[in-house]
């Protein structure tokens, strides 16, 4: 059997049925073998989109997503996507072609040191030097990617390894691989759990801070039971959105820089903070000195490296969230729970203060109004949002959605958190739709972020992948614009995106249906049409560029929520004739 065939057999043995990729010379044997296999290959139009799609697939399904590229520029094009997956603990398998083994290191055509390149942005990487290594390496790669704290794993595949012969009888795919030094700890220490249970039982003002680890672990059920049993309010990180139903009375919403007032105040006032599967990024904590200043902190995380890294942990518990929460609940059942009624009254009061005004009729459309109508349409179609997946891009669109959109299910709100990758949303939606073909997948993106991977309109058109793209079109890099208005004396520097492209025309040029939404009263109608069409669809929503979210200044206290300054955009974009005039006037300087 050829090495390339062995690779495909290994993928199939892992349950992989669909991969995302872009072919090239160094991957020729693999693509040749792919032709005869049952694996479905989705050709993206850029390798970066293949990586993001595999990431979206992984986040939506919980299974490993697979992306493939050739050597050199194919591999380097994966870097952003893999780094995004790594920052958010997403199990992606990245396969790269490589020049033949004897040419490695000789600066051959399309050669790059892929191993060195991917090492800092992957959980692990391999370079296969002999076809015999293929079965065991792939088993190890999938094991590492999907267990413990998940993360991307890279496999570098020299062309001659793909072409080489392997005796599959002698080198079968092992049922188990021994990985010395890799033993993720999944069960929490019983003594620590008892301590935590005691602390929670005796607490007066507890808060749960739930991160992405709850979703990855599949611990939503346990979280709900814990919160309801003890009556602990729950806030989430951006990555944790969806792990707790946000229409629940105990739900506080997202915490942090763009978090809700209820969440930010609750965390600041609590006496016990139960942090589950989160990493305390700066976007969550703000000024560390004033983060949960009066609280004892219980930190539950599967990655011991994260505990105590940014925030002190009074009771650290290393383990898988699902296991730990189950054990914690068992320990709590045996204890007398102190009454928390006073705290809950405070919480409900804070929640009332946090109810946002969303019923605007203004033109251009307020983002709050769009999110409200989107929620109503989606809940009408799918009342428990069981078959609904939202992906966001990075920027104001992400924060509008994170702040206002109420999720109900885990793996239903996919966003680039740690790396904050613009351009992530649309290809991730493609991956999510492939992973969950019966879900309604909505890609919420900005005009800047959408344009970065707009070539993927060709992919959804070719494969007829019915993703609905909603562009928050304010012709502005809104997040940067907001920062400039707040912190740089309203100097709006190079953030205006201009009047073109016409996104409706752009989508139609790819054969994708499209429409523009200008007026608030047409939002619901057009959203329904797009979602229920079961076809790829793009909606260009003309959004008020001057609208901004309240935010906590970077490094500030969570209770210092600054209200936005409304500043109209100042268009300052010289035309080329103006540029020529300037050039003509300036003396040409020889360098």
């Amino acid at each position, binding site marked *: 059997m050829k090495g390339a065939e062995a690779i495909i057999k290994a993928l199939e043995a892992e349950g992989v049925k669909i991969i995302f990729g872009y*072919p090239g010379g160094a991957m020729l044997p693999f693509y040749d073998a792919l032709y005869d296999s049952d694996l479905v290959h989705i*050709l993206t*139009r*850029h390798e970066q989109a293949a990586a993001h799609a595999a990431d979206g697939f992984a986040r939506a399904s919980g299974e490993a997503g697979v992306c493939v590229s050739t050597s*050199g*520029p194919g591999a*380097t*094009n994966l*870097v*952003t996507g893999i*780094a*995004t997956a790594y*920052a958010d603990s997403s199990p992606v398998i990245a396969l790269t072609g490589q020049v033949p083994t004897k*040419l490695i290191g*000789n*600066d*051959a*055509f*399309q050669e*790059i040191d892929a191993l060195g*390149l991917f090492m800092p*942005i992957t959980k692990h990487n391999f370079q296969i030097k002999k076809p015999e290594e293929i079965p065991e390496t792939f088993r190890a790669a999938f094991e590492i990617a999907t267990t413990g704290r998940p993360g991307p794993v890279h496999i570098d595949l020299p062309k001659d390894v793909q072409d080489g012969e392997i005796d599959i009888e002698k080198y079968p795919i092992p049922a188990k691989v021994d990985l010395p030094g890799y033993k993720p700890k999944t069960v929490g220490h019983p003594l620590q759990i008892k301590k935590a249970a005691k602390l929670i039982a005796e607490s007066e003002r507890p808060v749960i801070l739930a991160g992405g680890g709850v979703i990855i672990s599949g611990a939503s059920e346990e979280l709900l039971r814990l919160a309801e049993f003890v009556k602990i309010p729950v806030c989430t990180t951006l990555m944790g959105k969806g792990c707790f139903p946000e229409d629940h009375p105990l739900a506080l919403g997202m915490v942090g820089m763009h978090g809700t007032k209820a969440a930010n105040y609750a965390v600041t006032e609590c006496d016990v903070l139960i942090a589950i599967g989160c*990493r*305390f*990024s*700066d*976007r969550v904590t703000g000024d560390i000195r004033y983060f949960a200043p009066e609280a004892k902190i219980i930190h539950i995380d599967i990655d011991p490296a*994260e505990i105590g*890294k*940014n925030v002190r942990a009074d009771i650290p518990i290393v383990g898988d969230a699902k296991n730990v929460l189950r054990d914690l609940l068992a320990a709590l059942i045996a204890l007398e729970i102190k009454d928390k009624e006073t705290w809950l009254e405070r919480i409900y009061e804070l929640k009332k203060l946090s109810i946002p005004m969303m019923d605007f009729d203004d033109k251009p459309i307020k983002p709050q109004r769009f999110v409200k109508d989107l929620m109503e349409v989606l809940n009408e179609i799918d009342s428990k949002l069981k078959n609904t997946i939202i992906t966001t891009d*990075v920027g104001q669109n992400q924060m509008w959605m994170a702040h206002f959109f109420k999720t109900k299910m885990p793996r239903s709100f996919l966003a*680039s958190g*740690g*790396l*904050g*990758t613009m*351009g992530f949303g649309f290809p991730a939606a493609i991956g999510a739709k492939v992973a969950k073909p019966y879900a309604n997948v909505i890609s919420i993106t900005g005009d*800047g972020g959408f*344009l*970065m991977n707009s*070539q993927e*309109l*060709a992919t959804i058109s070719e494969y007829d992948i019915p993703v609905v793209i909603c562009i928050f079109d304010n012709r502005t890099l809104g*997040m*940067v614009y907001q*920062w*400039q208005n707040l912190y740089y004396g309203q*100097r709006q*520097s*190079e953030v205006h995106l*201009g009047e*073109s*492209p*016409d996104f409706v*025309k*752009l989508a139609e*040029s790819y054969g994708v249906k499209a429409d523009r939404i200008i007026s608030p009263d047409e939002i619901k109608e057009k959203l329904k049409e797009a979602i229920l069409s079961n076809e790829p669809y793009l909606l260009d929503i003309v959004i008020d560029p001057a609208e901004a979210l309240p935010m906590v200044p970077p490094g500030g206290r969570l209770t210092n929520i600054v209200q936005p300054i409304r500043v109209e955009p100042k268009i300052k974009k010289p035309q*080329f004739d103006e540029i020529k005039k300037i*050039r003509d006037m*300036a003396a040409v300087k020889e360098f």
Partner: protein
Amino acid sequence: MGGNIKFLEAMVDFLERNVKTIFSYPGEQILPLYNEIEGSSIKNIMVRDERGAGFMADGYARITNYIGVCLATAGPGATNLTTPIATAYKDNSSVLAITGRCQRKYIGKNYFQEVNMDFLNFYKGYFVDKAEVSYIAKAFADCLFNKKPVQLNIPVDLYKEEAKDINITTYTDIYKDDETPSNNIKEIDVKKPLFLIGQGIFGTLSYKEIVKISKILEKINCPIATTFPARGVINEKLENCIGLVGRRGDLKSLLEADKIINIGSSLSYNTYVESVREKLLSKTENIQLKPKSIKELKEFFENLDVKNSSWIYKNSNKFQPSGDYSNKIYEIIKNIPEDAIIVTDAGKHTVFTCLLKTCVIPRNIISSHSFGTMGFGLPASIGVKFGTIDFNIDREVVLISGDGGFLMNVEELQVVAENNLKILMVVMKNNSLAEFCKIKNPNFNKIADAFEIDNCYIENVDEIGSEIKGYLKKNKPLLVVVETENEPLPKPNI
């Protein structure tokens, strides 16, 4: 000078003295610098993806033989530069990548968009941890004199510190030429000598000097061959010019020569293909020459004594267009000015362009020649265009791309449109990805409409001439979609 100058001001002052254009995309960690540049004399071109910024800086560097500068924020802004910086590295291009970083105290601490930045240091990177202008000067010097991309990574809290070394205004103060040129060669006494010229011959010459090299080389009385990126350094119409050698060029001349004098070629596998590599290396003499002025180059060749001047090599294997694809490429080449700067992407169109174009001037063709980067063409052509504007290079810019490569950075059409860049953009639409598969293409003409760019669609080779003539009379960009049948490439030398 009196008063305390912040590093931010000092840095922008340095950039103003040494840079005309920066290609950038804003983000949180570079906002202070971004805003300061906006108030300076530097032209800041906002791209639509950091990938585009990297490729534009690369195209700019190649045509001007100076530094191309791109600016990107931390995290994904920087990772998006990976492919362009790798491309610049493989092709020896002077790209300076200025990247953002969070405050120093947050490095490695789960800060938003914080990631280890070493991945961009294919050649070298500077993490700037002191507010010294000399860091910038060193980065400039490294970038320009070594013809390699350099990363300048600056944490955001450094900008407000008091600047040191503010007397440094340019990079030449910093540069020390470590390499002593060992040009011991004075005479060449073999019967059949051959000069192999690579792009290293450009050294740090200005563009105006580069175009004068051909006049020096035409006087050499022995055959002169070039690598791909150096094509046009000697006009290929001249009698002593062999033209391109290697994978897609002549091989017999290299084999027939008694000695090969290499000036400026890194002797990649594209030039010395594997099957004859050892044989060629054994008779190659490498000249270390990085000219800083045309005078230096002139003196070098004048002092060279080439005996046995009777050897003339005739390259008799010129490729002739035979199918639909190559005929259309040839028709394009015939109708554009012979000195047009042709930027290509990666794919079949690049090979046909390479085989059919007679290069008469340096940088007649600009390609991702060592990395084969799809998506290079459109943003690189934009960077080339800005380079021609800044350096008063009166040459047309023509992009010849395939359909797959063009789509990869299609968002940069916005930069073409809003700056009204006169670039002839040709998409060779054959609806296929090399030998791998057929692809369904969008309607490229409608895409151009969406960006408000003039466009036309061509099926017959006869239509090409009139469209190009019309374009040349105007002062605006044009997208030309050329429907073409597939055609196999001639076999390369391996």
